């Protein structure tokens, strides 16, 4: 969210310099991404503060944290002036769950022109471009109130406006000129004949405001955020409007925004000639209990009751004292506040997180649990280091080169359904192929003697709830000789850990990966009669594919206590 500084100053009578607001925002409210002379960009990624997606919301917050008054009264619902027998726009809403509120106003007598310079600046500081005076009103109002709006060219809309689910195979050309295939999961706005917009995501090209437009249908609505998010993701359309719909909207804001937009159109010479409002237009009033003792115990600081009250009041909450505690009424624009802990966060941030003093941990120690496995893993790493080996880490995936060159059977591997690229499509079920790849890369870099190991998880398909994850040790050695297996075995023998004391070589086993090994240089490693891994020279046929003529030996064992 790019907050225009000039615009913000119109809404708050800032009692501190802007620099102080910029300093306070991350400490009291939200991180900032970029600050220039013209705007402050708030880091809204994944945030739950829908109110901060509007200039008025930011103004209320800025006023609270800088002790300044706002230049407007937030809670007053401005009247939309029309009588009960005022003409209506013909609309129908198919499913109120998907579209709880839908308002459409017809405004006539407009003339499309460029937007006034002052408003162009507001748009630009907010990161938006000007289109024309008629279309810009919708964006200016959205920026100020957080309520997205859309203006259809009224002459291009035939008959009743319907909010409905798309039919299978229905198509629409959106404002960006692209033809979109719709399906039953898309909510759309249509007229008698065809779709004129994907609800809350993007309007249709046919009913776009053109230079000849004189009358419009102005839409202000609330759509179900979940179905809207799905549509938006599926069509790859992220707009300023769809973001706001997803974060959630309030009815009070919607009415204020609609009323303001109508007034702005009237200033442009337009006249409201028909209007229809559907749905329940009152916001639910949330009340949350707040206890003084819980505040003190959760923050770890004694905060006096008058400070609790003044902090919350500055943020627009109203409090009713109930003994040591309060019943707190949440202002309509704070949709993120539901429980007592939410209120305590408000108190804590107004107090200043940075002022909370450290407090040592008390209380009894938990029962001891078995830590022998992590200890064994670290002891093993230490022993391997002592033996002269360098630990590497490789990805949990096989590279496409490894899969192709080793001709791995991909059907046996765990597959990612949405890989970033072919390099993250299949998960490793052994460590040594990645060590082979890394060894070859280092040889090409000029290393003549390479002794590396990795300890990490491999991932194996199995029946049951989750795939099997198994810790493995793998070592790779390329020592410049034509028979590195012998030294590798000596190194492994030298790792003097009780865990490996019973490990024995076995020739007579049919190893599953034999095809990758030198025809005579491989042995199974057994512990207690169970195969736990192998030691082998990797067959030069495969080593050569990785671009080196050096001989490479590898060992791999599973690590289970």
């Amino acid at each position, binding site marked *: 969210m790019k907050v225009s500084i000039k615009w913000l100053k119109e809404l708050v009578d800032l009692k501190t310099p802007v620099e102080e607001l910029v300093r306070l925002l991350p400490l009291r409210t939200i991180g900032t991404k970029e600050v220039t002379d013209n705007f402050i960009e708030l880091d809204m990624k994944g945030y739950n503060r829908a109110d901060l997606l509007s200039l008025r919301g930011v103004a209320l917050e800025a006023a609270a944290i800088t002790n300044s008054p706002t230049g407007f009264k937030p809670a007053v619902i401005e009247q939309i002036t029309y009588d009960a027998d005022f003409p209506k726009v013909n609309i129908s809403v198919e499913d109120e769950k998907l579209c709880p509120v839908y308002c459409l106003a017809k405004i006539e007598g407009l003339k499309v022109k460029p937007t006034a310079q002052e408003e162009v600046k507001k748009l630009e500081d907010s990161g938006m471009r000007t289109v024309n005076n008629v279309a810009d009103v919708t964006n200016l109002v959205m920026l100020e109130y957080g309520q997205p709006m859309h203006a259809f060219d009224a002459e291009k809309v035939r008959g009743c406006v319907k909010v409905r689910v798309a039919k299978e195979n229905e198509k629409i050309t959106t404002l960006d000129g692209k033809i979109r295939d719709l399906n039953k999961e898309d909510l759309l706005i249509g007229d008698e004949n065809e779709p004129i917009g994907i609800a809350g995501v993007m309007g249709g090209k046919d009913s776009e405001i053109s230079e000849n437009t004189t009358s419009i249908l102005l839409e202000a609505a609330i759509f179900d*955020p979940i179905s809207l998010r*799905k549509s938006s993701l599926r069509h790859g359309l992220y707009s300023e409007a769809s973001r706001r719909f997803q974060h959630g909207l309030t009815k009070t804001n919607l009415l204020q925004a609609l009323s303001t937009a109508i007034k702005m159109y009237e200033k442009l010479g337009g006249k409201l000639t028909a209007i229809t409002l559907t749905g329940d237009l009152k916001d639910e009033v949330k009340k949350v209990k707040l206890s003084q003792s819980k505040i003190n115990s*959760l923050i770890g600081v004694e905060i006096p009751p008058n400070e609790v009250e003044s902090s919350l009041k500055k943020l627009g909450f109203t409090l009713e004292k109930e003994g040591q505690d309060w019943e707190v009424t949440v202002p309509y624009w704070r949709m993120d506040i539901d429980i007592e802990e939410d209120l305590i966060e408000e108190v804590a941030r107004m107090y200043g*997180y940075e002022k909370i003093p450290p407090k040592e941990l008390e209380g009894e120690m938990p029962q001891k649990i078995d830590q022998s496995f992590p200890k064994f893993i670290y002891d093993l790493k230490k022993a391997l280091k002592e033996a002269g080996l360098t630990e590497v880490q490789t990805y*949990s995936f096989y590279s496409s080169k490894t899969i192709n060159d080793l001709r791995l059977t991909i059907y046996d591997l765990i597959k990612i359904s949405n890989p970033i690229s072919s390099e993250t499509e299949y998960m490793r079920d052994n460590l040594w192929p990645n060590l082979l790849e890394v060894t070859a890369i280092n040889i090409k870099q000029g290393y003549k003697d*390479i*002794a590396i190991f990795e300890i990490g998880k491999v991932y194996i398909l199995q029946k049951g709830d*989750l795939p099997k994850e198994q810790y493995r040790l793998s070592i790779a050695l390329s020592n410049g000789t034509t*028979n590195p297996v012998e030294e590798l075995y000596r190194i492994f023998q030298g790792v003097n850990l009780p865990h490996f004391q019973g490990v024995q070589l076995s020739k007579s086993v049919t190893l599953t990966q034999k095809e990758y090994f030198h025809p005579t240089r491989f042995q199974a490693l057994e512990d207690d009669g169970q195969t736990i891994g192998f030691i082998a020279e990797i067959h030069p046929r495969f080593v050569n594919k990785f671009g080196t003529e050096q001989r490479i030996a590898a060992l791999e064992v599973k690590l289970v206590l």
Partner: protein
Amino acid sequence: MEEKIAQIQKEYLEKISQSTSLKELDGLFLDIFGKNGAVTLLPKDFSKLPEDARKKVGPLFNTLKQELEKAIELKRVDVREESYKKLEGESLDLNEKTDVKSRIGLIHPLDQFEHEIVELFSKIGFQQYDAPQIDTDDFNFELLNIPAEHPARDLWDTLYIDNKPQTTSNKLLLRTHTSNAQIRILREYKPPIRMMVLGRCFRHENIDARHEHTFDQFEIVYVDKNLSMANLQYLSEYFLKSVLGEDTKVRLRPKYYPFVEPGVGIDGICIFCKGKGCKVCGGVGWLEVAGAGMMHPQVLKNGGVDPKIYTGIAWGPGLERILMLKHGINDLRLFRSGNLRFLEKFK
């Protein structure tokens, strides 16, 4: 000209088929495609030809090129396969007392750092817990107060598993954070709980010097009566002073994570400018090093812990980032590259 091409083709195909070593083939390759190679020099005479002849010669020349390249490639495979036959005669004697070279070993810097952190928190009673890296949507998101289609999911671009076992109806994914351990821990152990989780996490992220799809996280799950943000401040100082030095300053600020309330972001004073503001910290004097918060009552409930009796702290730093700052590492990808030139600096 056509004759000349045919002659080159015949001559070299024969030479290739008669060669018996890779070295010989390398020599032949140079004879054909080198600076003064037979094929390289051919086109020089093309300009002298009349146009209709040129039109004929072009395709012939291309076929010649491709055929010879392919012949060499195939012969290389043959020669290699021939040499692989000799491997049968090589032996292996693991009872042989081979010498072991003396080398300087190394524990990977990330693992070394993680070990230091484990030691540090073991001292105050935290114990290690290992959670799966492939987990269900429930443990990674849903039970942590992050419902499907919630805008907060934008924080975690996720890699999903395609071939999940049919026994589970839950979506499988690569865990996006070590927080997938939280519910498991709460369900397995009774408070007081002091647990630490360590290990690999994954995100759907295009990689460059500052972005990785694979990274390590460390996280504390601490549940007891009367835990407060003041304890969280203590843990943050305890960690950062040990890792970045006694004179390190710590700053808490509000941050949103759906599974904590209040949510906390933890800044350490910029180790380069000591708070004055520089390029590394973007002029603000502080660097974000960890995320944390008081465990959300709904998360405690989902884990079977009564939030009226117990409170919890979840706390975790980004490990690679701190290491990069400490050692002036400028490329995140180096950690999992296996690049020995990078690793040797830590010996």
